[in-house]
């Protein structure tokens, strides 16, 4: 399979990349890890006139914690950088658990966190974690930078809020209010398959009281399901069998699964409930141990 012809640029600075996007008025596409775009080019689902390869912009290759606990993930941070990261291992359990479940180990050496969020696949894993963690995307255009909250970033399946001349330069995860706990569980038929259903949960705790609760689901709707409202029943409460049950019910209700080759709608909703219960009970158990 051959992609159709395109021109190719590999700028070394963000400013240059943005200038190229700007000059080409919507006919150019950003190439990051290429693990979604190159397959689409080969199938000719996409045939841009020009590719702007950002892999040589070394300044985008990072993920780091600011002194206040804000996590910044540069546009060249690969899935495997997060999988093996010492930085997020303890501070961001939701991301750390998701990292090992995105695609397969070889795809993870190339694919990027930010590229995945930009791709806006309703089944993408990172978009779910971004919603649960209330993340935002920093976009740079010809007139400077702006921040876009994750809940406004994805405007539909495979479409995002970036203008044609904007590059997503980093993802930002705000610091936890208290201690960050959470988890990510995904049911896949085999390694590398997209989620039959997956659940991202991110809680901030003050002692044993939940101060902020975030949740999102992938694979169980036409888009990533924002279940932040549903999980907010936990805010101000402790994690008990009753509060966990109530949250799991509410979140399963927020899912909008369809019956397909991966399973029936009922089955997927059941998985969501089971996964939420499993993540929250796990947190409750380890909090008890710590106390």
């Amino acid at each position, binding site marked *: 399979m051959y992609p159709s*012809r395109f*021109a190719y640029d590999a700028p070394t600075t963000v400013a240059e990349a943005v200038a190229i996007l700007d000059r080409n008025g919507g006919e150019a596409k950003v190439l990051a890890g290429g693990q979604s775009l*190159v397959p689409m080019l080969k199938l000719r689902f996409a045939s841009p006139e020009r590719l702007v*390869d950002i892999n040589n912009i070394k300044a985008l290759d990072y993920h780091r914690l600011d002194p206040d606990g804000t996590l910044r993930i540069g546009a060249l941070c690969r899935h495997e950088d997060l999988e093996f990261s010492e930085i997020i291992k303890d501070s961001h359990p939701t991301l750390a658990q998701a990292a090992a479940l995105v*695609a397969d180990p*070889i*795809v993870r050496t190339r694919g990027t966190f930010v590229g995945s969020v930009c791709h806006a696949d309703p089944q993408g894993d990172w978009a779910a974690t971004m919603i649960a963690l209330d993340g935002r995307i920093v976009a740079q255009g010809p007139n400077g930078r702006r921040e876009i909250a994750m809940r406004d970033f994805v405007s539909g399946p495979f479409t995002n809020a970036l203008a044609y001349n904007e590059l997503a330069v980093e993802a930002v995860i705000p610091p936890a209010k208290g201690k960050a706990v959470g988890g990510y569980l995904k049911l896949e038929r085999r390694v590398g398959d997209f989620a039959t259903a997956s659940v991202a949960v991110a809680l901030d705790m003050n002692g044993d009281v939940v101060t902020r609760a975030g949740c999102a689901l992938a694979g169980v709707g036409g888009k990533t399901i924002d279940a932040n409202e549903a999980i907010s029943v936990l805010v101000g409460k402790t994690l008990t069998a009753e509060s966990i049950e109530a949250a799991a019910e509410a979140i399963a209700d927020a899912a909008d699964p369809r019956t397909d080759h991966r399973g029936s709608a009922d089955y997927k909703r059941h998985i969501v409930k089971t996964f939420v219960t499993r993540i929250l009970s796990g947190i409750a158990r380890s909090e008890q141990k710590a106390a």
Partner: protein
Amino acid sequence: MTSLYEEVPAEVPANVPTRRVTVTVNGEKRTVDVEPRLLLAHMLRQALQLTGTHTGCDTTNCGACTVLFDGRPIKSCTMLAVQADGHDVETVEGLATASELHPIQEGFKQEHGLQCGYCTPGMMMASKALLERNPNPTEDEIRWALSGNLCRCTGYQNIVKSVMWAAEKMRAEEAE
């Protein structure tokens, strides 16, 4: 220098842009003129005649096209050849020396890690990347590292054993 524009080197329209790329392949600098849309797998197989790298699915699923790119495994059907400019690529042809098989190849021979052999180059390169980071992997770690590589024949058991065999041999060599 090789020029390659299409599978069949027919008339190339004068307006087709090509780029000159220099890639270190198995330790040797190779310079090729390519169209930006040429995939790395095709550059290796057709322009450089290194047909050890296979393409099985062409949809980024099977891992038969796995090569090492600056030491990390990548699916070469999912990278553009132009992206390899200035980088280091290792293919299965780089494993053996003139007189000796690489321990990974020997392991696949000893433990019957292949049947048709289609997946084997990818399996070996993914194994090499694993053993470079983790010289003493458990069976689970091997299965994890090879989970992006599909095999239609062996049922994987013997592939895992082959990598175990290679790991042991490489550790023994290291100790010498």
